[in-house]
């Protein structure tokens, strides 16, 4: 197993290298970071030329990539535009852990990402937990009570949730539980943000402000997850070894949770394994609507400003996470199903 993991990690190095080149080239077509500098007016021509020179954006693409990868502290830059490079570069490059400085926020990319990552992990972690636990309960119930009234009801609600766009669920829930509940004099939830400034950022406030975003995200994903679990459980429950277990007189909970669920978990592990890396990416629409300061909004804000260092930082982080979680998923496979061997 260890050899397998090491081999997979080594294979990931050229993969990440190729991904970085593709993403860097694509980013150059995402717009001009100096077009308006986020303002309402077009950047003055003198400022555009000066900034392009100072930020190294006037360099050929391969040089920009090289600076991003290995830094520019081995060469000198022409900052004053007299044609003579006189100022030593300061960037160390990604290979030495320097992802550069955000063109927008003027601070290190690692810091920009770190400011947001905990918020996203909090929101997405809780959401994923709610989705997994909730869909396990619903999926298993539906499988064990197949074709019952409640199974049909759950199926119908799941499909309604699955077919609704997230922005609709989010805005609808905000208007019902925050705006209208307040107007009707009922207990209400907050509309946006992570806490009420009058109260402060307490755990209770953050939990309260998370209710609606977690609800909106979960409502959408319950359907898919619970259907996976339902169909996997149904398939396993009809297997011979389950019949044998029943015939042996094993208690029903043991049959369901030990024998059936463990084997039915393989497809769920696949789905969760694929989803987990993207928890880091946040939920763009939900974070935007509920003003949750997470990675999804960070990505969107910086893509729209053509902030290559930050966007590359986020995308490379996700790429690494995908590789790592794929390996972890493979390890969990082997644990769940002893027939799987990686030697």
């Amino acid at each position, binding site marked *: 197993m260890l050899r397998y993991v090491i081999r997979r990690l080594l294979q990931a190095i050229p993969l990440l290298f190729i991904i970085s080149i593709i993403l860097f080239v694509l980013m150059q077509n995402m*717009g001009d970071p100096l*077009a308006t500098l*986020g*303002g309402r007016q077009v*950047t*003055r*021509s003198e400022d555009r030329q000066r900034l392009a020179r100072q930020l190294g954006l006037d360099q050929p693409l391969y040089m920009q990539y090289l600076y991003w990868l290995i830094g520019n502290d081995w060469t000198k830059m022409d900052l004053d535009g007299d044609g003579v490079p006189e100022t030593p570069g300061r960037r160390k490059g990604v290979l030495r852990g320097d992802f550069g400085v955000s063109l927008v926020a003027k601070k290190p990319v690692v810091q920009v990402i770190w400011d947001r990552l905990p918020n996203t992990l909090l929101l997405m972690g809780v959401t994923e937990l709610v989705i997994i636990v909730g869909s396990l309960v619903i999926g298993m119930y539906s499988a064990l009570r197949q074709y019952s009234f409640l199974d049909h009801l759950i199926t119908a609600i799941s499909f309604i949730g699955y077919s609704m766009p997230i922005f609709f669920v989010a805005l609808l829930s905000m208007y019902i539980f925050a705006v209208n509940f307040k107007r009707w004099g009922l207990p209400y939830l907050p509309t*946006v943000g992570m806490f009420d400034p*009058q109260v402060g950022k307490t755990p209770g406030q953050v939990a309260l402000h998370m209710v609606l975003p977690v609800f909106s995200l979960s409502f959408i994903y319950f359907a898919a997850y619970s259907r996976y679990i339902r169909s996997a459980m149904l398939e396993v429950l009809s297997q011979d070894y389950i019949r044998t277990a029943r015939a042996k007189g094993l208690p029903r909970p043991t049959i369901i949770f030990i024998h059936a669920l463990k084997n039915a978990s393989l497809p769920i592990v696949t789905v969760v394994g694929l989803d987990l890396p993207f928890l880091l990416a946040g939920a763009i629409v939900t974070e935007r609507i509920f003003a949750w300061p997470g990675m999804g909004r960070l990505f969107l804000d910086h893509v729209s400003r053509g902030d290559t260092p930050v966007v590359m930082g986020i995308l490379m982080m996700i790429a690494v996470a995908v590789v790592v979680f794929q390996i972890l998923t493979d390890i969990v496979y082997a644990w769940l199903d002893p027939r799987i061997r990686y030697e």
Partner: protein
Amino acid sequence: MLATGVILALLASCKPTATPTIPPPAAPTAAPTAPPPTQPPARKVATFIWTQEPDVLNPLYTNMWFSSITQQIWNCWAWDFDDQNNPRPVLVKEMPSEENGGISPDGRVITLKLRDDIVWSDGKPITSEDFVFTYEMTMNPKNTVASTHPYDKLEKVEAPDARTVVMTFKEPFAAWQATLWRGLLPAHILRPVFEKEGTIDNAGWNRAPTVGCGPFVFKEWESGSFIRFVANDNYWLGRPKIDEIFIRIVPDDASQVAALKAGDADLGTFIAYSDIPTLEQAGVQMVTVFSGYNEGWYFYLHPEKGHPALKDVRVRQAIAMAFDRFSICKDLLLGLTKPPATYWANTPWQDPTLEPWPYDPERAQQLLDEAGWKDTNGDGVRDKDGVELVLTLGTTTRQIRRDVQAVAQQQLAQVGIKLELANADPDIFFASYGEGGPCATGQYDIFEYSTTPQYPDPDTADWLCKEIPSDENPAGVNWQAVCDEELDALFQLQATQVDPAERMKTFHKITRLIYEKVYWLGVWEDPDIWAVGPRLKNVRLSGATPFFNIIEWDLSQ
């Protein structure tokens, strides 16, 4: 199940409700007791919503509108502008003029006399040294500031004493009042950073300016979430009545409206016209403030690459009269604005006799006929010398602009002009010639967006011949490629006219010329729309410096 969960959570935990409750009858008291200790008054916290997060707070490093209006809360300008756009001294004793000796007769030297009581929020005096330092940091090539304008017009800035700043320009500079000293750097904080690092690009102060000179002091910024400011006890014009300003970043327009309706915010801006009625119904006051922005069409008139039809002024006049901008303002913008006659509408710089081009499709047809553009092949589109009158109208992806495109397409089709529509995201749409921007490279025959001159100053470089982008000048900003010698000369003249009356005359000529030759066609006046919640009192907003009287703002509890 989830919905049930949400309701249970609500019932279990939520905020106290506004539901009135009946108090229990008071128990009879045996004997008079001492009066209860008085509660300290609740802190007055005003919540603002910004739909875009400021990139940085250092005034030198940003062009963002949301960042620049935030600066007025915690930083200081040498003077600001009231709601009538009159300059109001803040750091200076009086506005410099020729009469008080603040402006030299040749207009090249401007002298500022600073107030004696101005201090940074940490109590250190604000001196002329801070002005010189701000100038030096702007011009130093090791700092990647957003713009060196207008400091690059200066020959030198001197501080003969702690209370005097002397600015010497290379040549008379008319736009000084609207462009100079929009924010100040504390030399005592940032000079050590510059001396140590050789740049202030990475100074912590850029994002956490704990020392400022505005009515409020920076307290905290949580990325993507909020920025908090508290009242500055040292502010020389008076301590604000509000104790704290909490700026919440809410990027979604619909969420901003919901928060304003729910009372979770006291001030919002960038409100869509379509949301105004619903907000007004919820008791939110809507305030429109003109800040120089006008939405309009630019015609690409490059001598080689421009469409031949557009080079004929009669065709441009015909387009102006075939496109009913009055209906756009009435129907799409709910009658809350009107078409501007020129790029300088709503300012004294526009010739007051000018009126927007009328909607007159019949006259438009006549003009097109006179210009020789007729439908000779019966396909419904006019043509001339084998060239069809098919024009590309490009704009950003903003919904209201898409709606306008659709209306314009239908209306111009009525007079035989076919419009093909194109849209691009703003960072592509506004990209330079060198970056392949569609406007700058002439991919659109007509392009629409909203912009302003250096409001409240009228100057702009957008019409100068030298600003036409090309391979040699890839950053040029005259994307419409208009090179009118008379216009160019007038623009160069006004930039050096420090006598406002003379400059006004020049601008009246400029506005008339652009109007008559239809180099620009106004679609709607584009004021800033503010939503002021019912708790917020004494709010007056200025177009140039919105928060000029923020120390008088108050909150009813």
